[in-house]
């Protein structure tokens, strides 16, 4: 029994979500191999070989894998799938994009967003925005899984010494091509890997106010910035900052919710945070029902005061 983890990486380094996925893979009971498919990705493959608990790295390098196109990446996984009992992807935008494609080609079901491995064929996963937890058993020979990274600790990124194999890449599907991307450049930690997140809601009122109030707090704490769906829909914050059922699922050490009422869809994305702080002037806001520390105050005065006191 061997599990394959599909690494998330930027060719130069391995993303943290990969480490959580390795932990989930190890819990499935067998050896853990990691697939690093990319272009000029030797550094990422070398980093994957260092991950504690990984016994083999398969490094496939090709120009056609530079942008992790679903068609081409799925083909690489399928080329080696027969060797594995479990195939695990991190439940990130990239992992969720490719995993079902692999599962369907293997004619097996996919188990999405697992938060626990009960046994090699039984897993726990949230449904209905985390309002219920389902324990599910797969009858398929190969288990294709996406892993909710907040459910598993990160494996140590050093201490391993896996062998690296470099098979030849599959041919390009020719059906899709990469045309460009707009990735926000900043020095902040990644939302899903941050230790502290400060998150803003609709009460901020405008994108100018959102930046003016939230940025100094994030800077002071070295935190990532998140937002509620209402704030994103209103255009106050970028789409990829959305925390919630249909956005990012986060579980930092500290989550500070400013002017967020706490719709169930938002709570679904952050209720596993270690410490939750809510700053809201509405005493009835549902966010207070999950907050460890609630401050009933106008965020426009409380947040700057907080920045000064830190």
């Amino acid at each position, binding site marked *: 029994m061997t599990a394959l983890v599909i690494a998330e990486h930027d060719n130069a380094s391995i993303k943290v979500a990969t480490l959580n996925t390795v932990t989930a893979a190890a819990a499935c009971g067998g050896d853990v191999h990691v697939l690093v498919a990319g272009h000029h990705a030797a550094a990422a493959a070398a980093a994957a070989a260092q991950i504690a608990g990984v016994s083999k790295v398969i490094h496939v390098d090709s120009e056609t894998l530079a942008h992790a196109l*679903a068609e081409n990446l799925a083909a690489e996984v399928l080329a080696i799938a027969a060797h594995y009992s479990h195939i695990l992807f991190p439940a990130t935008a990239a992992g969720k994009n490719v995993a079902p494609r692999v599962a369907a080609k293997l004619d097996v079901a996919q188990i999405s967003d697992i938060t626990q491995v009960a046994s090699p064929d039984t897993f726990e996963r949230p449904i209905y925005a985390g309002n219920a937890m389902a324990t599910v058993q797969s009858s398929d020979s190969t288990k294709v899984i996406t892993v909710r990274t907040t459910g598993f600790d990160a494996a140590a990124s050093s201490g391993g010494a896996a062998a690296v194999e470099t098979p030849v890449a599959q041919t390009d599907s020719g059906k899709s091509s990469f045309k460009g991307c707009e990735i926000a450049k900043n020095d902040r930690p990644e939302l899903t890997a941050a230790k502290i997140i400060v998150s803003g809601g609709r009460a901020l009122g405008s994108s100018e106010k959102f930046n003016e109030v939230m940025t100094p707090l994030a800077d002071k704490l070295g935190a990532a910035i998140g937002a509620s769906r209402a704030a994103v829909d209103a255009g106050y914050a970028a789409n990829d900052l959305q925390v919630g059922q249909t956005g990012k699922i986060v579980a930092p050490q500290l989550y500070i919710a400013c002017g967020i009422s706490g719709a169930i869809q938002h709570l679904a994305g952050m209720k596993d945070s270690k410490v939750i702080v809510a700053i809201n002037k509405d005493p009835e806001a549902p966010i207070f029902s999950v907050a460890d520390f609630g401050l009933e105050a106008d965020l426009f005065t409380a947040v700057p005061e907080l920045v000064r006191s830190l």
Partner: protein
Amino acid sequence: MKILVPVKRVVDYNVKVRVKSDGTGVDIANVKMSMNPFDEIAIEEAVRLREKGVASEVIAVSCGVTQCQETLRTAMAIGADRGILVETPADVDLQPLAVAKLLKALIDKEQPGLIILGKQAIDDDCNQTGQMLAALADLPQATYASKIEVADGHALVTREIDGGLEILSVSLPAVVTTDLRLNEPRYVTLPNIMKAKKKQLDTFKPEDLGVDITPRIKTLKVSEPAKRSAGIKVPDVAALVDKLKNVAKVI
């Protein structure tokens, strides 16, 4: 060009579901059901493409129980031209792989140029069907779309990815799944609801399409998530900072 839009009937977005006391599932008896919000966005996008002259016909499809007809009528009230119901027994747990196979059979029948689906359903939160359909039909995919432009046999799709946006070009036919910001679905008007009642709605059984819908995943139990209890209210910022530093020790 035809556009096929699969739509799912789910527990309404605003309903907070309750886990059944026997742990067999969630209680959806007498609960308000609606179209999955992402699917509404998919229908709206397809109708807009037809209104722009890019598409000639929008076909809404739903797989599930008889009542999915209501979901299809809503899709037709938004502007879909006709509906197809693949009716499945109420006691069969219909899973994404089975739905993808049913949809693949309909693609073979209808030969659409574009298939637009919601990125995930808000009940099982699976986020699988679109990608699985693309794989089974051997079509390119562009998931989590926030913009779709169709020209010269290709779709240029802006996708929401971790950290920002990505633009892909996929050759048609292709599968696209919608993210929240693709569009804002129109309100359904009474005249359009009346018109939708007269639109064509065909019904098939999985056997008619030669598809085995046996579930592959068995739900052993459904339980309440661990409750997070409310903490304390602090009177002011100074007290908050004190708690964070000295009690929670997180800063």
